[in-house]
């Protein structure tokens, strides 16, 4: 019984990390209705810039954190101008887009974002060619052992101890606060209102005088800055960064975002937690490979589920 609780706890903590990673991705989709496949590579390149500062210039952790977030925002700006700055109306659509159909332009933007994904990955690896690169470490030294005797005496189950790393708990708490705070900000503040207005109906927003293009660029950059926050948080717990980080961020973030419903900020939290728990359970039942498999299987099932109301093409 205690093992299961430990599993769940670990899964939830992992899941909070995935939710943090998926937050920016969900936001860009919510705002632009387009999936940014360069998201993982953005986070990775920003992390590599931070790692470079740390390795070559022994920068302190706070400076690295700022650099990572700022770099992520700048890179996001570049991605947005190149791939997603495409106007969404018919009249300026280039002749003969590769993908036609209701979401043709969204898929075109997706396609060009994967091209930028390749670019950013190569740039990162050119910057730091090694496989393992040091990253400033904020990891905790030891673990907390939480005694579960109270739990045991209440439910009659044998007590014991749960292992809990305080740094991962801090990350989870930060994620929850950030997510809920962001959701509330989007709902209550004027800036959040502007963002939602632009996402909802671009032409109407333009008609009431909002600088739509600038708002979109700002929002995109802010979402990518969030990816930088996530990257710094995750990597500081690990104290190293590898070239595989970009793909990891993209895939985990994508699964968390889609599980919770693309575009929903609170949804990403639930999606990430669900993913973490499923992975944890899969690993304990069937091993490490099953853990990876469960991630993608979950994503696949959610996508092709027959009861999905949205996401169907006309035919």
């Amino acid at each position, binding site marked *: 019984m*205690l*093992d299961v609780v*430990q*599993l769940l*706890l*670990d899964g939830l*903590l*992992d899941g909070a*990390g995935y939710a943090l990673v998926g937050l920016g991705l969900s936001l860009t989709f919510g705002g632009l209705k387009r999936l940014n496949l360069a998201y993982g590579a953005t986070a990775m390149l920003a992390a590599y810039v931070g790692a470079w500062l740390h390795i070559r210039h022994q920068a302190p952790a706070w400076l690295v954190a700022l650099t990572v977030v700022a770099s992520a925002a700048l890179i996001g700006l570049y991605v947005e101008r190149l791939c997603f700055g495409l106007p969404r109306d018919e009249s300026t659509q280039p002749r003969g887009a590769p993908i036609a159909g209701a979401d043709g332009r969204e898929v075109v933007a997706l396609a060009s974002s994967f091209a930028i994904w390749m670019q950013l990955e190569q740039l990162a*690896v050119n910057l730091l*060619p*090694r*496989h393992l690169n040091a990253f400033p470490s904020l990891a905790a030294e030891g*673990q907390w052992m939480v005694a579960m005797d109270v739990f045991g005496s209440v439910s009659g189950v044998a007590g*014991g*101890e*749960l*292992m809990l*790393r305080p740094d*991962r708990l801090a990350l989870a708490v930060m994620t929850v606060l950030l997510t809920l705070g962001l959701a509330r900000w989007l709902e209550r503040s004027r800036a959040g209102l502007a963002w939602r207005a632009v996402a909802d109906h671009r032409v109407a927003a333009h008609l009431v005088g909002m600088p739509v293009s600038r708002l979109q660029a700002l929002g995109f950059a802010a979402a990518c800055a969030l990816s930088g926050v996530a990257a710094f948080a995750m990597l500081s717990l*690990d104290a190293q960064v*590898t*070239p*595989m*980080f970009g*793909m*990891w961020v993209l*895939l985990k973030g994508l699964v968390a975002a889609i599980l919770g419903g693309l575009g929903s900020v609170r949804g990403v939290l639930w999606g990430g937690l669900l993913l973490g728990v499923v*992975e*944890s359970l899969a*690993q*304990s039942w069937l091993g*490490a490979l099953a*853990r*990876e498999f469960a991630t993608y299987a979950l994503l696949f099932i959610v996508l092709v589920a027959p009861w999905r109301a949205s996401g169907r093409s006309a035919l």
Partner: protein
Amino acid sequence: MNSSFPSLPSFPSFQSARLAPWAAGTLLALALTLPASALAQSSSRPQVGLQCVSHGSGPMLECVVDLRRRDGSAVEGAQVMLGALMPSMPMAHTIKPMKAAPTGKPGEYRATLELEMLGVWSVEVDISGPLRDKVARNLLVHECPGSERCAATPAKAGDDVHMGRHRPGAHGGHKH
């Protein structure tokens, strides 16, 4: 909805004239590869030893191949070609293959490959001459500072995986 598959109409003559050479070429090429003799499964495979060290930036990978027959005798006079590819991106990072020259010791051949990146490489040893074989070994190429030489270690399967988050310590609560 009447949805029978559209059937292929008979080709106009100029189209079949263009197709014919391709079809013939394919058939000819296929014929080359159907085995004329029975499958030979003798254990005439040489035993291949591979030791590589990396040095410099690039990095350069200097490999020594040791060829022996089953009975332990050295294989001399073989044509050994060394190549490498990166398992994570198989058809990119093309490395110019290098002919391995005999070092003087019987059965030993050496060549230096110019790699593009650090990390896991699949080094291919292509042997022709008295015996024909092809062996691939995965090696983790490390960075070597200055003018030192560092051995490239055999890469295990997990060396290149995605950032594995399931560190054993985090789940130390299992009491198996």
